[in-house]
């Protein structure tokens, strides 16, 4: 298999240098953005950028297998898991700017700079030599070399990994399981509740197609007034709880646009209410 990523190792040095600096700048900028972005979704997307640029850096360092694992497992699976949990928790959840601990940001910045200085000193003192001469294990033979190591030298850690994964899967199932505290409602109890609730019939449908083709149009009653019950609470709640205003406004717009093009009555107009 001759893939561009596998052949990237012996590429021209200027190309490698150019690619490294571009990717390094992208990765650091996305990392900083991740720390600074207030919305959790933006953080997730920026983390994906960091991970993808790291994947390309792995390929440059002669690790094509890890590059693909990074894209498939990390960006594909782990980050998608993050996004699923974000959907449960609420996609618009944003951090508040108020500091709960006084001076937390300042001390965090000082600690970060201290850590950076410390690590930079360590690296400056360490003798990090140039890259070893290219071997087949860093190019087209990467997967074979890794497999040989995993199934000989690192066989025991590899087997222990399976126990870890089983434990993690079981733990996730136990933690995410919800115990039912109330008995499951049967059809009988639901029907009784409905009759006892004062309104056994379904709620009236919205006035879609009566005056306009949008679902937030309230139905018209026989006396010409509108029925608030006919519009879903989800839609009417968008206008900060002002159900009356939404219904009246939508009705007014409906009569305005009815003379225009009834087939393509503009949805955006009614949504901004």
């Amino acid at each position, binding site marked *: 298999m001759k893939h561009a990523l596998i052949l990237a190792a012996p590429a021209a040095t200027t190309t490698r240098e150019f690619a490294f600096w571009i990717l390094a700048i992208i990765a650091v900028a996305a*990392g900083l953005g991740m720390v600074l972005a207030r919305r959790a979704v933006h953080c997730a997307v920026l983390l994906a950028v960091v991970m993808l640029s790291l994947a390309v850096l792995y390929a440059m360092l002669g690790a094509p297998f890890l590059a693909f694992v990074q894209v498939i497992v990390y960006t594909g699976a782990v980050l998608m898991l993050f996004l699923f949990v974000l959907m449960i928790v609420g996609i618009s959840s944003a951090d508040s700017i108020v500091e709960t601990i006084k001076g937390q940001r300042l001390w965090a910045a000082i600690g970060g700079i201290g850590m950076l200085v410390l690590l930079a000193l360590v690296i400056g003192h360490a003798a990090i030599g140039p890259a070893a001469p290219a071997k087949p294990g*860093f190019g087209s033979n990467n997967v074979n070399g890794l497999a040989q190591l995993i199934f000989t030298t690192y066989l025991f850690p590899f087997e222990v990994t399976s126990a870890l994964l089983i434990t993690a899967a079981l733990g996730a199932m136990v933690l995410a399981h919800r115990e039912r505290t109330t008995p499951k409602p049967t059809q009988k109890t639901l029907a009784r509740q409905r009759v006892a609730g004062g309104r056994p019939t379904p709620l009236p449908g919205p006035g879609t197609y009566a005056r306009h083709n949008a679902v937030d149009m309230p139905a018209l009653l026989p006396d010409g007034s509108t029925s608030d019950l006919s519009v879903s609470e989800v839609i009417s709640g968008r206008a900060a709880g002002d159900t009356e205003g939404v219904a009246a406004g939508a009705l007014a717009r409906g009569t305005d646009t009815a003379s225009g093009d009834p087939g393509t009555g503009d949805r955006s107009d009614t949504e901004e209410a």
Partner: protein
Amino acid sequence: MVSPAHFVALAVILFVIGGVGVLVRRNAIVLFMCVELMLNACNLAFVAFARMHGALDGQIIAFFVMVVAAAEVVVGLAIMTAIFRARRSASVDDASLMKY
């Protein structure tokens, strides 16, 4: 010429960014993302050292780190959904029942 030292320096910078994120942010999911960033930075250093020594052991360790990180994310996010279900909040400040 880009040497492994460049890659290790980049790994250090990313690690510090992730560490500062863990200290500053309060949304538990974002905290987890910052931890992931730190793990990724470590992986980059491992791969760079593997390239420097011309041996594949560093890549193997990076591979194991990925496996452990995946397991950690699964359990951590399950804990987070459990906490969110109980308290309706993903902020680490709200889960302070043991304080005082």
